[in-house]
């Protein structure tokens, strides 16, 4: 189990481009807040819970059999604890090439809560300060989507495994997997800063 608690994850002076979009991370200051007029945007607080007691695939499903040992693959988390089902979490698998196997985030479970995530369209003024990166990013005068990082993110038994597998589904014939690592988060992350998203380049 890993417990994380960063007092300040202050993110600034960093921009990166994915394709033709760009994201800039900006430290949040009181001066920056002055430009928030209250006429725009929204503040979100909430909680996301994944597979608290399993997902919609159930132990009673036809075809829900491990091809290797004939055990029940999918079930509730109660059944998993009782060792009558192998899994109860969500699984996201991708196949990066045509001939080889799959990469997967497996057995995704747990909850994440946060307070004060903000979203708004923001016009970047010449007086806005991004630690000197604003000219390089070329965003002065632009409208950006500002994602204000939540002041605190709490993880409660948030866990997943990173696996490689031969098939997409654990119930597929010939399925074999190798767990590369597992992660279990408990604790909180405190954040400060904004992510700015805006277009650059030829659309």
């Amino acid at each position: 189990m890993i417990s994380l608690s960063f007092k300040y994850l202050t993110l600034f002076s960093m921009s990166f481009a994915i394709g033709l979009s760009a994201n800039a991370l900006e430290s949040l200051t009181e001066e920056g807040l002055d430009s928030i007029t209250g006429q725009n945007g929204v503040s979100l607080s909430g909680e996301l819970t994944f597979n608290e007691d399993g997902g919609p695939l159930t132990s009673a499903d036809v075809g829900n059999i491990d091809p290797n040992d004939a055990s029940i693959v999918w079930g509730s988390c109660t059944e998993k604890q009782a060792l009558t089902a192998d899994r109860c979490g969500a699984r996201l698998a991708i196949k990066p090439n045509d001939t080889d196997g799959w990469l997967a985030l497996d057995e995704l479970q747990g909850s994440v809560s946060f307070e004060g995530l903000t979203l708004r369209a923001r016009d970047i003024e010449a007086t806005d300060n991004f630690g000197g990166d604003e000219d390089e990013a070329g965003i002065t005068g632009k409208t950006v989507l500002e994602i204000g990082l939540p002041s605190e993110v709490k993880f409660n038994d948030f866990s997943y495994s990173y696996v490689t597998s031969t098939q997409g589904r654990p119930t597929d014939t010939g399925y074999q997997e190798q767990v590369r690592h597992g992660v279990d988060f408990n604790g909180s992350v405190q954040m400060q800063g904004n992510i700015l998203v805006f277009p650059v380049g030829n659309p």
Partner: protein
Amino acid sequence: MKKIGLLLLPFISVVQADLVGLDETSMETVSGQTGIGVNFDKLITVGSITYSDNNGSSGGDLQYSDIKIGSSLDVDTTPAFSQHLINVDGNEGLFIDSLFESTRIQVGGISVGSHIGSRSFGQYSFDFEGTNLIQISNASPTGFLINTTTSFENVGFQWTTNGNTFRVDGMTIDTILSDAVFEEKSIDVSTTALVIDIPSYSADVSIASACFSASACITENSLGSFSRSLNLINSQIQIHGGGREDVGITFNGHFEFDESVNLIGDGNVSTYTDESTVKFAKQSGVIDIAGFTFDIGTGNAVLGDHIWTQFDQVSGNFKVGNFEIAGNSVGEFEMIFDFSDGTHDTVDYVNRTLIAPGIAFAGQNLDAIDPFMTSFYNKVISTSDGISLFNEWNLQADFVYTDDSHSIRIDNYQTYGSGYVTLDLRSGGANSIDATNGTESFLAIGVKDYRVNYSFDGLKVGDESSQLQTGYELLGMSPQASFTINAAIEIRGGGANGSGVTFDGDVLLNDANFAVTRNASTGNGIYLDNAMYEFHFRDVTMDVDTQGIQLVLGELWSEFTINDVRFGDSTTGSSLGALIVKQYQTGSKVTISGGGAGIAKCVGGTGTDLASCDGNWIDPETQGLTVTTQTMLQKRNGSKENSVTWETNRSAGVIGTGTALKVDNIYTTDGYDDTANTHGIQTTTSIDVAKTRVLKKNSGTDTNGVSGAEGSELIMDAGETAGYKYVVAPTDLEKADRPEGLIISNNVQIKELNIESVNMIHQNATAPMLHGVKLQNLNMSSTLSVTPIR
């Protein structure tokens, strides 16, 4: 009234009248001891009745032709019987107590101006039987004092075009008009009008069934049943001569709902009942109508001669005190509205409707819009009966939704636009946009060049003085949009289960611009510019049962092409490139039900009540709205598919010339193979307004000048200038004064979601980046509270 001609063309009538003795039993409310009785056996045929406001330079004729009055059993051969008992009392005036046996009033055609003789609005008939008592006496100091009590039953209505009929069966109408004063008096320095003061009026109307059939409705083809109870007080109608253009008629009105009837039961209420009931209860409000005019217009380039209605202003407020779906309350809805003239982008918009007979676009080649429009209008001809409308509007409004006494407002909603709509009745698969449909009749609605513009500033949670915020994005609402609609829509009676409604349609929205989010003060935001959304739906049914409003979506396919996703100005902001989203579903379902999440919870913490919760205690109470969906994404079938394409680096911004990233062939399955697909993506979303915790993000002063320490809690306090303060460690009493927020609770369940491939595409050359994606066994729940940035 200047010149209003009423021309009775030659008619044939058979009227037999007998004088009979006064029946005291049926004259219980008549205090006088003298009177006469008249029995009528009516079999009347009128060639035509024409209303004309033609004064030689403007105006035209409105003609009702082939009018017949007779028995509902056979209007051609059987007389309709009525008895009228007439009494005059020295103190209480004239009484006429009437009994109508089964009677039909039938109109063979209604047409306007140059359309007369070639095409009409269709044929209409009205059946009724019942009683009517009218009392007329002198009002003080002037005018007539009129009381009426009307009770009709077995009322029916039929509208027929081109041999196909829409009918309303089993209607009852009960009305009471009390102490209405009719008098002619000056309403301004130059106008004298008939003024009707209505201290009290009530009307109860119920409709057993409505359907598209020449025969009596049956459950399988019925649209459902309806009822309406309306009580007005302190209302007034003014009628005077002179229309928008020379001769015509002008109305003004003031209508006030009687709220006292809402204290017990449903009060003023409208209901729609299928297997279960949707109810709009405890209605209240005041509506003022100024300068509503009625003219006969001529020479419209599209409609030709037409009925022309227009008003200067309709304003007021209308509230539904309890909106209920299948017995579960959603909450209150209120609309504060003002329809009046306005100017947008130098174009003047008025509130008017032009109505012409026939189908204005019949037989036209509309391929330039979309071939489905040509096909739709090729199924009628230039002489087909029907209704063609041109509508233009300008509206400003606020909408308020109140959930368990907590309110959210859509602030400063403005809309304007104009366009054409046609209505006619058709039958059979060959005349349908879906040839697999049966022989039944249906309502065909055509929409052509309907330009819609709207915007609103944002949401306010609480009252009108609350801080503006977004959050509409999370509800799938665009805060600003403009688009042109062309559509062909068919409506049939009967749902997935018994009565209900079935829809088929092809819809095209083009020349569109949608805001995703925007700053209401600067107008800058994120916009979907130069967009086109074409969607098609087949066999979509709507029913109301104990679960709520059920939509079974049959087959849906669509393509949403966004030429530019813009940041900044709506049409000139920096572009992120083009986005193309295609959808293909069959068998998807949507259920809309009353009641929100319903269960209080400690979000982000533990605890069983407000005091013990160390996170955010959210209690959505009982009212609210819950939407459940089951989305069945299907594999690619020809050009129908589920995919998302993002394209950039285009030549002159033309789609198809750049480099694209395509998430291709997205579909759902049941988790064990690529064939079974019965689960889809299942979501349950509840929307509530409730109190929520808001923590200060940074120490210092916020945008409203209120200071507080980081992590302190916002507590509402009317004694503070800004209406709130920050408290480091609030007491339980202070926690009870947390601010209100929009609460969105959601659960998503997916057995398996597949993406066949993720491809890079450049000039028709495709290179796969991923050869498959599978998301399995997802069960994600979320609770979001949405508040303004302070």
